[in-house]
């Protein structure tokens, strides 16, 4: 072996070792700063992690675009949906008077809220776009209580990293990190365009998350859990979406 090729071999080896350890350090840093999505395993994990990490760094506090009142879509499209289950129909027949939102997990004061209680909190509204992963979209005025306010009422513990939210429909649940949970435009929405939130758009209560695609804005919310790990929920991938083949983070 000539000197040149030996030198080349050593340099290449050192460069490779440096590269691998740099990747290792980057991975540990990313994990520490919450830049790794729960569905990072598998062949698409690298792309998901790059997207989530870069958007988390870039968009932690940025606000979703808001529109003028005259830009509101004439009809807020109610997407196709499976017929509601018995529990929902029972509550609907009572005018949703008995609808409850229970909050538990890493909170100091677990609680259960009625719609009227939620409506007694500061009312916020936003004219934002709902964009579906399929490609269509509409703009509506969403009215509700900021999720951050409800989290303040129950007293989120410092260990909290995610909020998991569940629909009354079985197997329909999602989760978001605290950057999204505490974001001022993340609502527990009960109204739309000056009226009650229609059932077709997720009424009586929908989690509204304008910085991510529509499927993260789960309809018919009844339960929130604050947690420091998503491992214990479903298959541990963060939400029902990755279990159905869709990405957990939908800020794209």
């Amino acid at each position, binding site marked *: 072996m000539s000197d040149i090729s030996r030198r080349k071999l050593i340099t290449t080896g050192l460069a490779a070792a440096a590269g691998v350890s740099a990747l290792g350090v980057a991975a540990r840093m990313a994990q520490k700063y919450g830049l790794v999505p729960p569905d990072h395993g598998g062949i698409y994990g690298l*792309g998901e992690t790059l997207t989530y990490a870069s958007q988390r760094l870039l968009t932690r506090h940025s606000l979703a675009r808001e529109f003028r009142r005259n830009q509101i879509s004439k009809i807020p499209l109610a997407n196709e949906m499976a017929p509601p289950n018995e529990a929902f129909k029972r509550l609907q027949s009572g005018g949703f008077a008995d609808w409850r939102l229970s909050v538990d997990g890493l909170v100091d004061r677990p609680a259960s809220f009625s719609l009227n209680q939620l409506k007694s909190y500061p009312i916020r509204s936003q004219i934002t776009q709902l964009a579906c992963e399929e490609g269509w979209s509409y703009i509506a005025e969403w009215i509700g209580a900021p999720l951050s306010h409800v989290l303040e009422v129950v007293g989120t513990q410092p260990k909290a990293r995610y909020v998991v939210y569940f629909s009354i429909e079985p197997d329909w649940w999602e989760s978001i990190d605290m950057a999204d949970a505490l974001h001022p435009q993340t609502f527990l929405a009960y109204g739309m365009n000056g009226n009650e939130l229609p059932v077709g758009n997720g009424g009586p209560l929908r989690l509204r998350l304008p910085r991510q695609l529509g499927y993260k804005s789960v309809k018919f919310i009844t339960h929130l859990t604050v947690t420091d790990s998503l491992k214990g929920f479903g298959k541990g991938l963060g939400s029902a979406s990755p279990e159905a083949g869709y990405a957990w983070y939908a800020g794209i």
Partner: protein
Amino acid sequence: MGDSVCVPSPASGVSATTVTSRHSALVRITHWIITLCFVALFVSGAELVISHPRFYWGETGNVLTTPLFKLPIPSSRALVPTGYGYVLPDQNGWSRYLHFQTAWVLVLTGVLYVIFSFFSGHLWKDLLPGKADLSWRAFSTAVSGHLRFKPPSKAEAWSYNLLQRLTYLFVIFVLFPLMIWTGLAMSPAFVSAVPATVTLLGGQQSARTIHFLDTVLLLLFLLVHVVMICIAGFRTRMRAMITGQADTNLERT
């Protein structure tokens, strides 16, 4: 042989040992990575379009609004009125994962290519037209030569002709950047940080429509590119882009 080319080597007797590469290694590697990326992005992108084969202009658009145009294909969603009596299976999950992961690979490879082109001289030597070519006469001669299927000159075995240069520049510096831009403009999170990405295009649905039309242009480029390679000599050109070797007559044994 119609597609044979000559190595401009003065000493013909020893030319077999002085093979110069037509394409540098970095150009060849990035070319094939980007080719694979394009295939993956096109297939997954087509799958995504099937879930809503309607295109709009402006901020919003859905089945209740008038489309700019729609594709005469069935859809993977029952919500979309297509005129077909059936609904295709939903393939959006893996299509989305694949689309966005591949986009990362393509963008990073593209950035590497552009930086390399800038510093290695590839951009100045091979892509930007020479001074002599920057005239309407040179341009019209090149166009008419192409239209009359004039065989390529010998110099073209070593470098790109004027129309090639202009097309490649357009693809590299207009179509691909526009694709990335319109892609980012559809991201609700990205535009929350950089709203101009979408407002400059006239809205999220405009961005989606431009993204689609850009795909059509890139696909057209791919077809013409492949046809031109077949005309210029498929084996020679493929070998040049795989091994870097330019000459068909030089077989190293």
